[in-house]
């Protein structure tokens, strides 16, 4: 049984002209436990919306999403929040660290809503991402690469079964990109988490055993690209 399984997923938004615009329409997609999948898609192809639907941040118009046997569709928002807190780690392009909190506290917040807070685990994760000497640094006192490492540690804090990474290297220089990407993969392997990474950078795709184009998956009309002749 797949860890993440979705069927006939559909999400639309109201455009400024008042018409409904379908942004995500994916007939079927799944990720197995411990699997690492890269999704490629140019900007504006609904990558973030797709991840938000999986994470339950957005509610789907229709379709079925299950994560670790928990449904993310047809349930209350509170249930989606609970499932997200318990089973999902999220890495953002812009890190999204809380600026008023230290690295250690940011990581602790990653486990605060899904179960007990384990300070020792927060420190261990930060050491794992190479920030054992920056535990009590605030995000503004860290480099962008270090901030993304904190975000990686935070995403793993609640022992997730699925890590969603949205352009995790989008704000990093090439060296940091390579290091952070490797770190995410290694950390997911070590913790047994599956990884679903979306990126607009085709170079990243080659480093994953399974990579797919979101444009092929997503049947929403505006994102369909003509097939090469």
């Amino acid at each position: 049984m797949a860890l993440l399984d979705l069927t006939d997923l559909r999400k639309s938004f109201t455009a400024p002209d008042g018409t409904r615009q379908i942004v995500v329409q994916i007939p079927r997609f799944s990720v197995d436990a411990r699997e690492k999948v890269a999704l490629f898609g140019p900007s504006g192809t609904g990558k973030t919306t797709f991840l938000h639907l999986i994470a339950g941040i957005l509610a789907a118009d229709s379709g079925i999403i299950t994560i670790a046997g928990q449904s993310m569709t047809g349930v209350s928002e509170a249930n989606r929040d609970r499932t997200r807190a318990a089973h999902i780690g999220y890495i953002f392009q812009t890190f999204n660290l809380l600026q008023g909190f230290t690295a250690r506290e940011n990581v602790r917040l990653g486990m605060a809503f899904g179960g007990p807070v384990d300070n020792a685990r927060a420190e261990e994760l930060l050491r794992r991402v190479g920030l054992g000497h920056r535990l009590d640094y605030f995000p503004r006192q860290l480099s962008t690469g270090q901030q993304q490492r904190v975000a990686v540690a935070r995403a793993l804090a609640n022992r997730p079964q699925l890590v969603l990474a949205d352009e995790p290297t989008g704000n990093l220089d090439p060296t940091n990109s390579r290091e952070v990407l490797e770190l995410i993969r290694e950390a997911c392997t070590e913790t047994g988490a599956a990884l679903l990474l979306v990126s607009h950078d085709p170079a990243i795709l080659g480093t994953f055993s399974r990579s797919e184009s979101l444009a092929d998956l997503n049947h929403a009309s505006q994102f369909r690209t003509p097939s090469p002749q």
Partner: protein
Amino acid sequence: MTLPLLIRRSLRQHALSTTVTALTVSLAVGLLMSVWMVKKQSHDTFTGQAGGWDAVLGARGSKLQLVLNAIFHLEASPGNVAWDDYLTIQSNRAVAVALPLAIGDNYRGFRLVGTLTNLPLVAEFGRGQHLQLEAGGRWFEDGYREAVVGSFAARKLGLKPGDEFHPYHGLNFDPKNEHQDTYVVVGIARPSNTPMDRVIWIPLAGLQNMSGHDPSTVSDISAVLIKLRSPIAGQQLEVLYNRQGNRLTFAWPIAREVAYLFDRFGWVDRVLTLIAWLVAVVAAGSILASIYNSMSARRRELAILRALGARRSTVFSAIVAEAGAVALLGLLPGYAFYFVIIGTSAAIIRAQTGVVLDPIAWDPVLLWAPSALVTLSALAGVIPAVKAYQVDVSGGLAPES
């Protein structure tokens, strides 16, 4: 752990607005508690400090003026009472004790009260508590120009046993009105925390015969303090003096007359209480405004928390609790404000009336007023909390351009 941490960090991030609003809360809570306590304590002490007396007999006029003059040593006497009137009421079977007072002179603003030498035996400032003298003193004797000085007056005037002074005519100090008579201080009364502490006691005849007084009124007195044998006697004497007679006024019961005074000035404490509540509302409003105004800046922060799994109810609670926490921060300085305000008020009231308020006395207001402020502030946090509740997570997480 999470909620307190979120609140603590948010308060620290908005340190300036937190400090200002907490100070507004402290002012509000300090005002509320002190207005309440000054009102309650002054009412209780004034109405409860009849010195063990049940009634006052005086010249025809205002009962309240009689009470203020004879019991609280404020205001002027409405007129004189003939010595025969004193003898008449003293011999009334319904009267247990009748103590004549003669008032009309002062020493540097502290009034001289002429009375009988049994004053320390009959005057009480609490149930069974009689005036006592400091060591080395004695009570004045009839036929001598001797004085016993109340503790507050002695301290202010720097008088001690053996000191001599010349009284001044009238109740207000005027250096031009000095009497030739020389009085010797023979005792200093121990503090009673009542208006008696502001009085200089001398023999009744001494005041009646003071040089320069009108010889035709030499035997007159200003008022008679009365203890009754039973409450029913008060009604009988009230009818006798107030309804059937027309020369004298029988002020009974004393507590009711003082209560009338408080009723008359009740609007003052109602205005002060209203002002205190207005400050409280302003404090709650400023908490609301400061948190509400920060909501745009917090949109991303709230969205991140939600993305980490925080429920809407969690962020709602965090904002409400933060508003309450600002009020909690204001409580400690609020108590400091309270002690400053009530301490100052107590000093002024004591200097003006001799009545002593207790700044450290316990009253439920010291608990319910701060609780009310914290609740009001938390309620003020509901509006920004609703905004936090409604935050669009997906939109809040979008990269800022």
